[in-house]
């Protein structure tokens, strides 16, 4: 069984600039994949290719098995795309906006009215249906755009920086909505700059820089691949210099450095060695109050994989 969204070796050039270079990855049903990379990395371009708004110079994208090149209309029927910048029509209410797009997706009669009602309920816009779009807040507009994206019940969703410009509450609400959608079995690709946001929401990430895919997979897998050593944080009641001296005698401890009131070090050994290390510290009369391996976070992944060069 192939992934719901499958990107196979796509390349896109704008004149001399290669915006996307031989990128391949997939998103499974029910999976939320975060798409991260610095400004100008090629995220939007990749997403626009998936949405049939650009066509790749090489390679192809398959949505539920349909090629964007050969059957773009089939793809459009199965894919919901929420662009990073979009506007709303003047003199149009929420209901009219949704009704219009429902018509544009070919929904008719009672089915259309029912569907518009459903997406308004899902995104909690029902009470606002008479409001003109021009008067909506950013958070509401974002929800409206999400509602629009859901009208034709797509099985694959592509959200380009949906959380940009939202306040914390609106962000949490959006995250819950996206989670709920994944729960319905939709494959979701989300790009964002807010990495903590993505880390809480996504099952995996794809990292892109200057058009090249740097890594893809679960955050944990990627970090394990990046680091040969476990990172450990330790804090003791004794003065920090005592701890540093004790650690310096341990053969498996590398790169010990202060971090706040404690010390972080790389440990090259197996978990059993780590347990021995703790015992050794206690045996030396130290009183550890914190001793924990430190998980690499998305920010670290991001900073390690990308060089911070802007394109």
């Amino acid at each position, binding site marked *: 069984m192939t992934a719901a969204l499958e990107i196979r070796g796509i390349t896109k050039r704008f004149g001399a600039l290669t915006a996307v270079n031989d990128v391949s990855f997939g998103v499974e049903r029910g999976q939320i994949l975060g798409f991260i990379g610095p400004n100008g990395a090629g995220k939007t371009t990749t997403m626009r290719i998936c*949405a*049939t*708004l650009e*066509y*790749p*110079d090489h390679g192809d994208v398959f949505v539920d098995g349909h090629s964007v*090149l*050969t059957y*773009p*209309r089939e793809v*459009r*029927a199965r*894919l919901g*795309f929420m*662009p990073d*910048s*979009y*506007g*709303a*029509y*003047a*003199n*149009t*209410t929420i*209901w*009219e906006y949704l*009704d*219009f*797009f429902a*018509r*544009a*997706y*070919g929904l*008719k*009669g009672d089915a*259309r*009215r029912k569907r*518009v009602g459903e997406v308004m309920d899902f995104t909690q816009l029902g009470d606002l*249906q*008479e409001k003109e779009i021009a008067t909506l807040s950013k958070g509401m507009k974002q929800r409206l755009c999400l509602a*629009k994206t859901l009208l034709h019940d797509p099985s694959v969703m592509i959200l380009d920086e949906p959380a940009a410009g939202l306040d914390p509450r609106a962000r949490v609400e959006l995250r819950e909505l996206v989670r709920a959608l994944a729960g319905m079995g939709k494959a979701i690709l989300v790009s964002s700059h807010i990495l903590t946001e993505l880390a809480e929401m996504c099952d995996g990430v794809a990292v892109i820089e200057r058009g090249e895919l740097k890594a893809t997979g679960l955050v944990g897998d990627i970090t394990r691949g990046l680091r040969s050593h476990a990172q450990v944080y330790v804090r003791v009641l004794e003065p920090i210099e005592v701890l540093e001296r004790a650690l310096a005698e341990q053969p498996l401890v590398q790169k010990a450095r202060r971090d706040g009131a404690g010390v972080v070090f790389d440990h090259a050994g197996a978990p059993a060695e780590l347990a021995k290390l703790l015992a050794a510290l206690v045996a030396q009369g130290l009183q550890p109050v914190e001793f924990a391996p430190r998980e690499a976070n998305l920010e670290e992944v991001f900073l390690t994989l990308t060089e911070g060069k802007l394109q």
Partner: protein
Amino acid sequence: MTGATEADVPASASTRAFSDRSNPIFVKELRAALRGRYFRVLFPLTLLVATLIAVLVLVDGGSYGSNRLGRDLFQAMFGCLLVAVTGLVPFSAFLSMGNEWDEHTYDLLVISRLRPLQIALGKLSSAGIEGLLYFSAFTPFLVFAFLLRGIDITSIALLLVGAWIASASTSAVALLLASLGRLRLVRVMLMALLAALLLAANIGANAYVDMHLRQPPAMNTMEEWQALALTYFLLGLPGLLALAAASSGLAHAEENASTAPRVLVTGLLVTLLGIGIWSHLSSPSRHTPMIVGFACALGVALCDLFFVTEAEPLSRRVALFAPRGGVRALFAAPFLPGGGRGFVLFLLHLALCVGAVAAMLAWGPHVGPRAGWEVEAVFCVVVFAGYLVVYLGGVSLLFSGRTRDARTRLVARVLIPVGALISIFAPALLGFLVEDRKWMEMQHPFDPFWVAIASGVEGDDAKHWAVLACVVAVLVLALNAPRVVRGLAEARAAGVERERRAAQTARAGETAHAA
């Protein structure tokens, strides 16, 4: 009026069925237009101005006891109506199309199930409804003018139909212009162009109305009806072409937006040439073949200049759907996108024009002033076609390397007609400066009309220029040969590749079936 009322109040089944079948853009535009400021302010304002003008006309006419009060009132009111339906309505169509670019909503339309033609038609039909509202608002004035006498009901009806066609046509042109300007700055310039075009159209329409009212045709002969049909057709033609161009302009850059307009232009050309041949054979005239030949060649060149300036290579998507098989693709090549292939189509169109003129003169009776005139007449058209080949082939060849860029394409498309006009009129100005009488009177080698006519049917004082023009045209043809060959070869290769893929799929299917 709002959508929610439609949702809440049970509308009748037929209303719902109608609303379901209507173009979504049309429904949306209509809702927005009726709520929008543009319409809500302009509509009453127009009526107010019209009332004022009506009062002025009546007071003024009444004071000297005019016996054509009805006609004066009609003319004034019709003028106001024209401003509304061929000024305000196209402008609102332009703004609503421009809005899609400004608000970045066009992408959202593209990824829905709407097709570009549907989008253009939706915008056009909502402009049509807006126009209808103006028509109905002006009806009381027009009825009043009729009651005052001085104008017959047939004239009113004919002019109203004409105004309606003009409204649709100008709105389509406005949509085309708006579809070209995705950047605001470009659109401001296009808006100025639109304003100029609409002004010219209004002046022309008012002049026509004046002429019509002075000598209203009785409409009891076939010729009068034919003339009327031709007038309506010519009024609608720019709109039809603009609609085709707009919907291909709205299509995705990689999508085949060229084949449909190419077929449309070819079909129109064949129709017009057919009408020309028929009209010449039914009532032979010395002028018909020349007018038909020149007008059709010029008209088709104006359309084809869009095709010859297209980006040269086939997009991946179009290549995927090339006609199956090399030979078939080769024959279809003139109708596939691409500048080189567009040039082939243009040559075919010119050949059709020359062929039609030759057919008229060969099949029709001898109409010329002397023996051998027919051959000279055909030569005239050939010379004129030669100039067109130089304009289109020359300029498009210069830009052909960079036509992938939309801006370069725009420059090339503007440069062809503007360059031709400059090369025709600049020498006349120069003639003024150096006081050369002939050049002043547009009798110079850069004026294709003069060279073509003077060298052919009117004697031979420009024959050497005509020959030179033909030589240059052949040179341009030769220079274009490489890109034409590349274009044809590319089409053929795409056809072969498609056949190969089809065979592969069929084989795969057979194996699957066998398994």
